């Protein structure tokens, strides 16, 4: 196997999630099993079947502390705002400085920050104005806010990044993929520090498409906090969410030289596609693709299945949960009590779409560093087909203290795309 140039560690974290904005609140929430899912009156007014969702509570205080008056005036794209907030938090957490004014950018610092429909509300407004013959009134901020790379462009400017500044998109696999892309760039010696992450907006105009596909849970409008039920016997659809997660990745040499605090290491990972063959479609995964992705991640990380302490699943609270556990079990050749602990952050945040992988990865790193496993809520009665594969004790109903050395995180997306990343406790 090829020799990697650099070990890559995580030195900063930021998050904007439905159940917590900012790392301290988010960590408190995931430890306590606190759901961020609420009834959304707008969805009821718009005749949605599913009228619950996960929307981060971003306060005006946080906005004015993070942006200038002019920036706020020129910025409406919700997902982009979430992404910038998470990115800035991670950057500050890593105690990195900003390139000031006319200073040169940091040529060795870059970002891969994924996005879904982050500027949908801004785009909607522009469409209305244009169709209303008011193209003159669009202003100058529409393009920069609605282009797919809006988030990486804004972060690049805020932080003065001079290395690669790009946005990746692979549906619900986006967030995990972005971390792997940034990881590879540092590993291969092309960058010293990369801000990785992803963001997505909450909007009826994004969520409506899923509602129409009947893949959302419409049976829990009266009981929002119980709506997202990954691995439960009665899981019948996902709950839409939004937000952003951000991680500062850094070469180990750089982190040591700066004396940075190190949350953990990225041991490796893999991305692939099931090719929409062999049972895989636009919306359903080819099981062989998922297994090969997991196997590839283990190979890349040089770890054995039994070393995994925790799996942070994709696990969306749909009929996809059972085959996902089956694919993990087959790929790892582990079952029953041998199977690692497994949880789903989506039980508390809903499915944050393009932001999911990065928010869940932030949770993984917190669990790795803090030696605990957050609960997978709303799963009192585990799906019987899952219990045929793994022991019930694998699924935590409450927070558990345990020494974590290896945490595996997977994400899968429309287009039959897969990603799997392996986080490892940092040991000199």
């Amino acid at each position, binding site marked *: 196997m090829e020799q990697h140039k650099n070990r890559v560690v995580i030195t900063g974290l930021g998050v904007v999630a439905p159940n917590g904005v900012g790392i301290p609140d988010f960590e408190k929430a995931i430890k306590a099993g606190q759901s961020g899912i609420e009834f959304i009156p707008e969805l009821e007014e718009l005749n949605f079947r599913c009228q619950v969702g996960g929307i981060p509570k971003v306060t005006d205080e946080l906005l004015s502390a993070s942006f200038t008056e002019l920036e706020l005036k020129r910025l409406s794209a919700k997902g982009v705002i979430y992404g910038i907030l998470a990115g800035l938090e991670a950057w500050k957490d890593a105690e990195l400085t900003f390139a000031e004014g006319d200073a040169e950018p940091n040529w060795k610092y870059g970002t891969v920050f994924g996005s879904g429909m982050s500027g949908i509300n801004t785009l909607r407004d522009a469409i209305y104005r244009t169709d209303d013959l008011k193209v003159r009134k669009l202003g*100058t*901020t529409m393009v920069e806010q609605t282009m797919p790379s809006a988030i990486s462009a804004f972060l690049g400017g805020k932080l003065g990044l001079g290395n690669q500044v790009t946005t990746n998109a692979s549906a619900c696999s986006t967030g995990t993929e972005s971390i792997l892309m940034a990881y590879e760039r540092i590993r291969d010696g092309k960058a010293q520090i990369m801000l990785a992450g992803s963001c997505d907006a909450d909007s009826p105009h994004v969520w409506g498409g899923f509602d129409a596909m009947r893949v959302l849970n419409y049976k829990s409008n009266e009981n929002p906090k119980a709506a997202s039920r990954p691995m439960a016997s009665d899981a019948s659809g996902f709950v839409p969410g939004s937000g952003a997660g951000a991680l500062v990745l850094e070469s180990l040499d750089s982190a040591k030289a700066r004396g940075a605090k190190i949350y953990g290491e990225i041991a490796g990972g893999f991305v692939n596609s099931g090719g929409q063959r062999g049972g895989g479609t636009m919306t359903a995964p080819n099981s062989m693709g998922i297994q090969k992705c997991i196997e590839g991640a283990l190979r890349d990380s040089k770890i054995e299945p039994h070393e995994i302490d925790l799996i942070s699943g994709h696990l969306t609270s749909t009929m996809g949960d059972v085959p996902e556990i089956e694919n993990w079990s087959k790929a790892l050749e582990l079952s029953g009590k041998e199977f690692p602990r497994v949880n789903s952050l989506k039980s508390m945040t809903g499915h944050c779409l393009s932001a999911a992988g990065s928010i869940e990865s932030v949770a993984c790193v917190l669990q790795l560093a803090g030696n605990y496993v957050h609960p997978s809520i709303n799963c009192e009665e585990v799906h019987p087909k899952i219990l045929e594969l793994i022991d019930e004790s694998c699924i935590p109903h409450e927070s558990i203290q345990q020494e974590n050395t290896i945490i595996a995180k997977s994400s899968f997306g429309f287009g039959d795309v897969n990603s799997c990343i392996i986080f490892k406790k940092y040991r000199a």
Partner: protein
Amino acid sequence: MTRSEIEAQLKTIIKPYVQNEEAFENLSPETDMLQDLQINSAHLVDIILDMEEHFDIEIDDETAEKMLTVGEAITATENLLDKKD
């Protein structure tokens, strides 16, 4: 509306775009919005949109091109408001 009333309201509109606070504090009709206030030229377009909305006027491209100083912007606004009445 008097010129000084227009000036006061214009100041509120351009304030967030200004990058040179000192020049803004010493604002006069001769103050150049790009050179002196160091307003980003792309933002000038947004200032014109903000003015249109605030004063409920339509500023055509030809007029907009001539609005480089604070005094010119006040005069243009004054003329357009007069036309409305």
